[in-house]
């Protein structure tokens, strides 16, 4: 049931083997200030992140707000330019491609956003929304347009008459189905799903997750699934990458997450999730303090200030991401 674990080989080899591969990507947002509007500081949104996703694999990216997971997702499909680092699609580098060259790549990589309300143009009908993307990329010939739209709408489990309605006429779950249909319209191979079910009610969340699961299998999609919800990630993903303040803390297969996760932050995340069973209550793991500001991230491990196992070295030096068996990797001095 699991796709092959992310094998950490040497970089060129991995880049060729993996379907999507990112190598040492950074994103810094400059902060301007002063009367000359100079760059006074940088927000370190993503720092030195590398990963590979095999064809057909779903990589979950988890972390709290501000950990850089959405920024990372956008950089992978180049909706944002990485400040440093490279992204490869099927072994060829896509960072550095010009606008024209990106066109064909864009078609292969799509994104589903968290908020279906704001990601669909309110002035277009469903037909208009889908047609725009399909026509722009010449996915089908104009005479096949209508039947293709019907097919898409049916694929995401909506009624045919939906295509003449506007986004506001749908419920949240239905709108997320539309977001999925729009992403699928270009027949992509890789999809970044950025918190696709976080805004939905539980019963609707299950419907949308099942739909995404089915589509992933039918269409052989490779996915990057960004979420703050560990249970959803465990359910949906093959591998998980845990981020904190722009850095990767741990990578692990999702079915090993609960038992084998090593990093104190991953353990804290697991421990602070409420339980499923009221008879098995245990005190939640309570971390002190808040996530530090990414404006001037502390030297050393970003988690050091809240970590129950902090050592002196953690405050001065960032631990490297150390490989374990089964593709697990941990960045922690206390776990060396």
């Amino acid at each position, binding site marked *: 049931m699991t796709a092959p674990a992310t094998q950490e080989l040497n970089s060129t080899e991995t880049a060729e083997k993996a379907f999507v591969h990112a190598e040492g990507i950074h994103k810094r947002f400059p902060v301007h200030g002063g009367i000359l509007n100079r760059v006074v500081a940088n927000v370190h949104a993503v720092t030195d992140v590398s990963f590979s996703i095999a064809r057909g694999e779903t990589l979950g990216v988890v972390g709290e707000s501000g950990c850089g997971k959405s920024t990372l997702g956008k950089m992978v499909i180049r909706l944002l330019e990485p400040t440093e680092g490279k992204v490869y699609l099927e072994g060829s580098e896509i960072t550095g491609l010009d606008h024209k060259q990106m066109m064909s790549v864009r078609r292969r990589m799509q994104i589903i956003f968290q908020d279906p309300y704001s990601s669909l143009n309110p002035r277009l009908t469903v037909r208009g929304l889908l047609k725009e993307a399909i026509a722009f990329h010449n996915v089908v010939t104009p005479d096949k347009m209508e039947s293709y739209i019907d097919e898409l709408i049916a694929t995401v489990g909506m009624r045919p008459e939906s295509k003449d309605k506007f986004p506001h006429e749908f419920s949240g779950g239905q709108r997320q189905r539309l977001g999925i249909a729009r992403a699928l319209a270009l027949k992509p191979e890789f999809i970044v799903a950025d918190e696709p079910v976080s805004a939905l009610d539980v019963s609707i969340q299950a419907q949308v997750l099942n739909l995404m699961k089915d589509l992933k299998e039918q269409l052989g999609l490779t996915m990057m699934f960004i979420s703050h919800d560990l249970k959803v990630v465990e359910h949906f993903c093959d591998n998980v990458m845990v981020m904190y303040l722009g850095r990767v803390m741990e990578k692990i297969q999702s079915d090993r997450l609960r038992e084998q996760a090593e990093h104190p932050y991953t353990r804290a*995340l697991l421990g602070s999730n409420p339980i*499923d069973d009221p008879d098995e209550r245990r005190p939640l793991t309570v971390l002190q303090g808040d996530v530090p500001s990414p404006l001037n991230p502390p030297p050393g491990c970003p988690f050091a200030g809240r970590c129950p196992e902090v050592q002196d070295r953690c405050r001065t030096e960032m631990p490297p991401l150390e490989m374990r068996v089964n593709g697990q990797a941990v960045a922690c001095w206390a776990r060396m």
Partner: protein
Amino acid sequence: MSETTQQPILRVRGLKTSFRTDRGTVTAVDDVNFDVFPGETIGIVGESGCGKTVTSKTIMRLLPERNSIIDPSSEILFDNLNLATAPETEMRKVRGDRIAMIFQEPMTSLNPVFTIGWQLDEALKYHTKLDKKGRRDRAVEMLRLVEIPNPEQRYKEYPHQLSGGMRQRVMIAIALCCEPDILIADEPTTALDVTIQAQILALMADLKERLGTSILLITHDLGVVAQVCDRVIVMYAGRIIEQAPVSDLFKRPQHPYTKALLESIPKAGKRSEDGRLPTIKGIVPSLFELPKGCRFQDRCPFKEQKCVDIEPDLTAHAFDDRPVRCHFPRNQEVDLTTGATG
């Protein structure tokens, strides 16, 4: 806990709240009955639009009078007073002092142009007889109680200078500064990250222990309910459909909706065989087009003709004494680790 001869501190009977809209009058909450006992945490769960927030705002009388109607037969009995019909002057003495409320988004419920200290002071000024110095000491003490680091400094700061978790702590400090009998918490952790949520939940549990406050927790998150509540009320389309002690509700949900809701959450560390989650088909009915019979009928896998014709009452069934609004309630154990019914 509830299984005593204690008198309830709050009794809600036949609560009905409607709204005037362009499309006519719509009833958001209908025939809601429950008790809150001293020192217990009671959860109200349900999906968006089920009426959980309207219920809490009706109790606090925070709904706009312009377009909301609390049915005159509704009773919200608190300390010899019917809050449903009490005059605004009486409500002011109760609100904030005896019953306090915290909201989902602390940024919008704190006033951005006043300091944290000013806002705590305001609450204390109205509800206590403390002098200026006394109020300040009390405010700083409250900030310390909710574990805000460096409270003297924070007292002078503005809401935007605080993180989301800290703002919610300040809201809790304001809510608790008059030592209310009941704290109504409307999705208090929904906007927060899970590690911050854990901090807030631990804080609420700790304060409940120390101050003996009853908590009415409104949430859509069943995990939070399992973690902190003693009793649970499940709402659907404006009605209470099931009410039970927390352990019973999770182990033996009787209403098909409760059961399906519990099954549809991914289970910790488990992937089902085919990787799919059990779902509830369809969506919540519009309050404008409620069916004649059971409100859950269109989504229910156990629907029969009786469900279409007659809306069930919230009553206990033969095999148990807890109320459920269903003609054909379930009576099966649910294995919480896998979500399967055995």
